[in-house]
């Protein structure tokens, strides 16, 4: 009698349990994966914002002519780690190099809209891009502002 009492769950019960758990866990796993990708993406986004902001701040600090010259020099798309000044900054913040892996930066200089303003200002946009994992897609992030000539 005691062996009867010790009988395990029925097959139906086991299957039901597996189904229930599967139904619960699968979306959870999917969700965890998605959250992981989001966190990764956000991390990259944050780093991109940091790169964009620090690059823009650095350029804005320069005198007008130097700033324009530097923007044009730095215009082409490069890996952010190839920017010596930025690399130095990254070193001080203690980010790992791989955080910036394949992250690129380019600078776009746009002349002022009107002829009168062209001597006085130009628009700088810093665009930072990084690849989406397991995809050919790229994500971009940018800041833009206007650099003004103080010596008028």
């Amino acid at each position: 009698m005691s062996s009867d009492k010790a009988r395990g769950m029925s097959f139906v019960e086991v299957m039901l349990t597996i189904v229930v758990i599967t139904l619960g866990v699968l979306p959870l796993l999917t969700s965890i994966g998605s959250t992981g990708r989001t966190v990764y993406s956000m991390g990259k986004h944050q780093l991109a914002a940091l790169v964009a902001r620090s690059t823009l701040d650095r350029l804005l600090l320069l005198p007008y002519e130097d700033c324009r010259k530097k923007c044009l020099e730095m215009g082409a798309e490069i890996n952010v780690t190839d920017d010596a000044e930025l690399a130095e900054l990254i070193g001080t913040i203690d980010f790992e190099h791989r955080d910036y892996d394949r992250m690129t930066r380019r600078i776009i200089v746009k002349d002022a809209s009107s002829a009168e303003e062209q001597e006085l200002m130009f628009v700088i946009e810093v665009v930072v891009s990084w690849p989406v994992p397991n995809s050919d897609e790229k994500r971009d992030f940018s800041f833009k502002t206007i650099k003004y000539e103080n010596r008028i």
Partner: protein
Amino acid sequence: MPANRNQRSGSVYLLAIGMLALLFLLLFGMSRHSSGRARLVSLADQKQTALFALEACYGDMVSQLRVQIKDKNEMLLQSFINATNGQRPAFDYVPGSTLTSLLEEQQISLTSHEMVFENIEPLQYPAIIKFPEHRKPEKKGLMKVICEIVFLERSYCLEVRIPFKTVFTLTPVLRQFAFFADQIHLEQSGKFGISDKINIIPIKNGAGDDSTAGSAGRQQPLCLGMSIKPHDKINTENEKEGYVYLGKSDQDIVLNLAGETQPGAGDLSDLWQVTPECFKPIDVNNRPIENMTVNTISGTMQNKTLSIPLKVRNTRANLRLVGFCKELADQNGPWQQDLKYVLESDSAFARYVAEKELLSVSSSLKLFGPSFEAGAVSARVPYPRNVRNIFGRVFNRFFVLSTFDFPSAHLYTKLLYSNDSGYNPPDGQSSFGDKYAFEIESGAYRNYMSRTMSGNPAGKDFDYQNIPANLDENNTPKIYTHADFKGTDDITLNEPLDSFAGEWIYDLHSEALKSDLNKVDSSVIGRITRVYRNQEEFKLAAGLDKGKFLIDGVVAIDGDLSLEDLPVTSEIRGGIILVNGKITLGNILRGFEPPPVPPVQLMLTAGFRDYLKQIEADSILTFISLTGDQITLTGHVQIGVHLVSLKQMGAPETMLNYAEPGKVILAGAVAVSTPNLEQLTRQFKDELPLFCFPPEMATDKPPMAVVISDSLEGYKYVVR
């Protein structure tokens, strides 16, 4: 038993449901965490995007302000000059097209903007300067700029405080002086002989004397420009000629002014400007000055003569001026002979005869310009008046002799110096024995009396008389001191002029500034609107690489400044350049092309005089060596410059140096404690230089720059 089985399976379900619930909770938590983080990231990005947009907004406002300041929007400038706390600049801001595009691209709306003045304070002056209450003082203050935008339904506001200053772009007091040498007494430790380094120009027949030049070469005096004002403005608007200060204020400076054997013989005569009018301006239209030949027993004598009608019927007396200089040292020359005849009993004349070589060299400072009568013009030019106010204890020793003679009398009355205001010379006598009392229609004898070495009322070896340009309200010669100084901006002085530099000019790293901040506020240091770490930074900011030279305010360079020739067509905007070290300047031509004539002759051309008059006060470049170091000019032509290097010293130094001889033209002013005239006059070598004063430097509305700083003093960013 089925009940037990059911109970167990119920527990499994419960466990599974519990686990699922936990998993869901975990999922929910993770989801919340990641979405919260995403929101934060998103918000941070928006905040940064908004901040860049706001900075672009206030940048656009300030940029437009700067453009209007550059374009001299008078209403705007006045709103800064008259700024009080809480007021707004007179400026209607409309966002520029570039900013508008930027904001539109990012779907940002500029909802409000405002500019308000704050913390406005007048700049202080040192104790020496009494700044008139009715004048607008220089100021410093803050301009609060507030911009507000809406971005993705959230409001962002940026509030910045930008320092600004309103400062004069010409140096107060100094700008009034065509030549200012506050320690020049150090160059004349003795009043004659080898200790006298001011009276050093040997001339003969009105020109530089080659025979005495020696191995060091010829010398030319430092020659200030001649009067450019209309002929009928006797002793009026003297400020437009630029004043002269020869210090120190308690030290006598004696200048040997030169005569000439024949009127109009050369550039260097000083007697051309020592007309009888100088002593007493009277109606010169009816009493023309003439160069007359006087017959004397021993021959003839040339001199300048004013014919004065006497009260005795149909008689006139001639007031004559003669002088001593190198050519008169010739014992056998005609003037010497004639003067002997007139003055043989005069003890001072006897001294001159005994020491003629010591007294016959001429002053290296020509304060009234070269002679109009020199070969430059063939037609007789009316004598310009003594128009330049000379400050300091400056005396002439050109041995001007006034003699008063009666027609046909062949007798001379020496007009001896007398302190006695009631003194009259003894009666004159005609050849027939008739006596004539010394009576003139106007004025007193003292206006006509001799300024010779005669008399000696002060008990000194010499009777030094001040240059006759300086007349008091009674048209009597007087010494001009700081108490007589009144700037065209109504500034007056509480202390002697030689105190000015010590209270106004400081080394940037002076200990005195560190220990007393009041000295910062009340000196030129407190006026600084921009500081450059070195000259390279300054040159870049001034726009030299683009052919410009823009100062606009008071800038300081921490180190030497060396400027090559400025491009001829440079766009130049004036201001004060403070240099903490040596200054080297090339040519500054401003489009002026020096013609191939002697520089001093330029002053005789209407074209140059007109050019000089149109040099605007706000275009003047003032270079000040804060350390009192040497100013070296590698170019010969500087138009519209004010060169300043002043300091206290125990021995003279070379503070103005021309690197190569040439045709020197300086349209502006010079203020150096000691120019080292002995060296400078040799650097001028073959050409009489021209130092001329642009009358606008003495404007009664000194230019004031409004300078908005590049830096910020307050920054507040709010997300609402």
